[in-house]
């Protein structure tokens, strides 16, 4: 089976890989590129644990084929911090204990980053609907919403 050659940009770096036509972008990230920050919670686009940003659009990487990343820009959780400096959302998730088991956290952070990029000053309701595509079974979402509210304040001041 000949693989498909893909040239793409991941977290700002040029990346090339071969993938099969039926491989999802999530499979490529996790199994071929070692970027295991995106998680597979369902494989059907229902849980959001595999959220990434593809050309400024929030997507479930389990619903995108690896071959579709050709010529696109991919942002994953591994690219969210700048070196040692955490993104304000990452910092606020820690401070508010917005994670317990943490499996959904990368997806929430990516989704929250996308939300704040489009709406820097969201109401609680806008945050709740903005993050409704991501499932968390541990926290009841309370501390996640508070962390995003707090991060929004910090980011506006920056």
């Amino acid at each position, binding site marked *: 089976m000949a693989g498909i050659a893909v040239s793409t940009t991941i977290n700002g770096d040029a990346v090339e890989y071969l993938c099969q036509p039926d491989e999802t972008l999530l499979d490529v990230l996790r199994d071929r590129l070692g970027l295991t920050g995106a998680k*597979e919670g369902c494989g059907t686009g229902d849980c959001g644990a595999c959220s990434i940003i593809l050309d400024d659009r929030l997507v479930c990487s389990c619903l995108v084929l690896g071959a579709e990343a050709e010529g696109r820009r991919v942002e994953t959780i591994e690219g969210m*911090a700048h070196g040692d400096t*955490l993104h304000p959302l990452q910092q606020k998730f*820690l401070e508010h204990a917005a994670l317990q088991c943490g499996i959904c*956290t990368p997806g929430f952070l990516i989704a929250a980053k996308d939300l704040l990029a489009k709406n820097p000053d969201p109401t609680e309701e806008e945050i709740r609907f903005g993050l409704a595509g991501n499932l968390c*079974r541990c926290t*009841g979402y*309370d501390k996640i919403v508070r962390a995003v509210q707090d991060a929004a304040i910090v980011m506006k001041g920056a």
Partner: protein
Amino acid sequence: MNFDPRFSGRKFASVGTRPIRPDGIDKVTGRARYGADFNMAGQLVGRVLRSPHAHARIVKIDTSKAEKLAGVKAVITAADLPDLTDGDAAMYDVLDNCMARTKALYDGHAVAAVAAIDARTARQALKLIEVEYELLPHVTDVDEAAKHTAPLINDAIFTEGLEEKPVKPSNVTKRSQFGHGDVHQGFGQADFIVERSFKTEQTHQGYIEPHACVANFSSDGTADLWVCTQGHFVYRQHCAQLLGMEASKLRVTSSEIGGGFGGKTHVWAEPVALALSRKAGRPVKLVMTRDEVFRASGPTSATSIDVKIGARKDGTITAAEATLRYSCGPYAGSWAEIGAMTAFACYKLDNVKTVGYEVLVNRPKTAAYRAPSAPMAAFAVESAVDELAKKIGMDPVDFRIKNAAQEGTRSSYGPVYGPIGIGPTLEAVKSHPHMKAPLGKNQGRGMACGFWFNFGGQTCTDLNIGMDGSVSLAVGTVDVGGSRASLSLVAAEELGIDYSQVKAIVADTSSLGYNDMTDGSRGTFSSSMATISAARNAILILRERAAQMWDIAVDDVVWEKGHAIAKGEKHGNLGKLSLKEIAVESGKTGGPIAGHSELVADGAGVSFATHICDIEVDPDTGAARVIRYTVVQDAGKAVHPTYVEGQYQGGAAQGIGWALNEEYIYGKDGRLQNAGFLDYRIPVCSDLPMIDTQILEIPNPNHPYGVRGVGETSIVPPLAAIANAVSNAAGVRMTHIPMSPPRILAAIEAEREWSK
């Protein structure tokens, strides 16, 4: 060791603060490694073939075509997992659940497995395995299964616990009974009696991380297993027993765990992965799909419960009785027994009787789910309690306060209570602003209480002090929700040092003595006890080393706020030595400094909570929405209050999903129809309000800091609190969980018909 676990009031420096967790940065940067995030050189992909039938005899399995497919390295069936359980019936059931032997007992039951070079080849290989089934009649409903006419799931089972041994086999595996006094007499004294029947549907723990493991069986007979689990030591024992290994030859490393809630206390695919690796001679990674998680792991029991409670005009309960039927899946369990124990545990009762029946059904093997069995019993009992209060004309909180169990009360399941929190949680609810807030149109308020036993168990902890003064704490209880932070706080507290100097890790099964699982809300309770004990042992050595450095008697050295201090006037000029100063010199004073502890953490204090919930019901659609929610729960002592709040909020959210929406839906063919997060819908962010919490601290007398487990109780009251709120909002008593829109609408319409 002379460890004294009794509570001693003390002022805390670290315990009760809210620092950032030690595993936090890895978790927000995507670096934390969960079950599926680990890989080995030469690793194969494992996949499991599952029965599409609810009940079928396996006539023949032909794996020859699959074995011939290029890239397939091993195919296994039950023949590759021979029965080595040696008469251990419970382990035989675990084995049969991992790989069906003679019959497939539910839709999703594993019948064969393959290991191949990649996922695509493994999937193709599954399609080439030919299984010949002889279909058998099935039963999935708990009440139907308990009938004499129901299809038998296991004809070797005769109901245990009856006065006379039955002559016919049954799907009811066991009857259990609890209580004291004389309920007939008690009901005779009652002025008001409420009697009702309730049902709850089966739910799944719904952890976001599917079961995942990497098994590596070596040709020298040893093996390694990397796995997401709540109890790697227990997984080692079970896997080793099923594979015919000595437990010491299997090393199990627990990965970060992406949620468990009881569902990761049972082995499922791990013995299969080990058997595949043994046969293929290569490492095998086996990750369940979400469909498999729903069809073949979890879930909790479906139940059917009858409750009868009587009370005098003054509000004193005179008698309480419940009959509880819990589904177990196709294997015997003790789920109804636990329900029967917890049902009336909140109350002081002279006459109480509960009877539990364990019922086999053609559904996945029931697994623990956060305070297993208690939420359903609480739903039935607390609904009836609310109705009885209304009948008497009493406020539901006052009615409960009047009948609440106290210190010295003999519980409905036997033991006499020590200091407990049910009264204080009710008093806190009574004075909570939430209870006085106005309600709008179509809105209703409900409240309910909940109880959970909590558990202690075997625990082993190592505390090693580095030469730089850092402290490494190795624990054997898997961290499911922040316990590394709370245990680091406890070590810092006991040693008198800063939290930042301590780093807790979860050690693998070869690095530490045996630990029971993180279940029964025991993680922080039991491992903090062992950590305190280990720290005190380390302090003994630190004092000895200081004495050596000063050349004085060890009895003249005390440990205060992280320092050795020489006591007595004759040592007045010695100053003090910090932990770090002693550690730096340790190479010259006798080598490394460490404290170890191995103990059985007895005396886990029982736990109580009371919840308040406001619901708005749309009378046209039957949709119910939680608009305000408050949790009040006794923590004994909150070690890391933020994570205690998190446990309260998380349990409440799971309870809200269970109460309003989540259920396993089976077709007439016995197949699960909603094995995915789209159709089995757990609460999302936009479904919920903020969840307020109030932590009460009634010290557990059996823990040095007064700690009680906090993880589970929070899921016990929500079903009932929400049912009471919906009933108040809709004006009709709800008796079937989940209260999905069609059920609420049907109840409202039936009430309208009735009142015409």
